[in-house]
């Protein structure tokens, strides 16, 4: 799954730690999502979307291999 987390975070000028605090996870979790090693569950994906005031679809995108 692809995601635009790093881009959106940069637009807001948030650090990984700041985003992690906003959605209630560890900084390592945000890093793992950004590097594509970890796909978040639906509740976390929705919390991330809410933090950026957007929809889950605008952040996460399915790839052909998924």
């Amino acid at each position, binding site marked *: 799954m692809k995601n635009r987390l790093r881009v959106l975070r940069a637009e807001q000028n948030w650090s990984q730690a700041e985003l992690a605090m906003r959605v209630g*996870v*560890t900084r*390592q*979790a945000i890093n*793992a*999502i950004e590097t594509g*090693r970890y796909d*978040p*569950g639906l509740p*976390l994906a929705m919390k991330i979307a809410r933090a950026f005031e957007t929809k889950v679809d605008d952040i996460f995108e399915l790839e052909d291999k998924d």
Partner: protein
Amino acid sequence: MRQDEKRDPGLRLLGLIFGAVALWGASYVTASRMINHSSASAKFRAAGVVIGVLGFLFWQLATAKLILLHDEFTRRIHLIALAIAFAATWLFVFTTDLLQRAGFIHFVLLRTIWLVMLATWGLAIWGGEWYYRR
């Protein structure tokens, strides 16, 4: 507000974990002394077994509580680590069973099996964190 409610939940959790580890260690040492007492009665040795099991159970419950309090990402790492520890222990038991039946080894202590499980669990947590966080 009571004093204990003001404390950092993380600190309370850390206290719970350290307490559980200390209790496990103390109960294990106590149980070992009681069951190794050759002149002790069966009831005394049975009490040693119960003390050892209860100490270990408390540690397991405290560890489970700690894992469940983490975010989904950390829980995933622990889930993978537990699966790896289970698979590694299964492989160890299977292999030693074959080695024993083939006459290459005499026997394996049950203590060795749970130590293998504990070691692989720790290694798997470390490996999982390394994989996701590098």
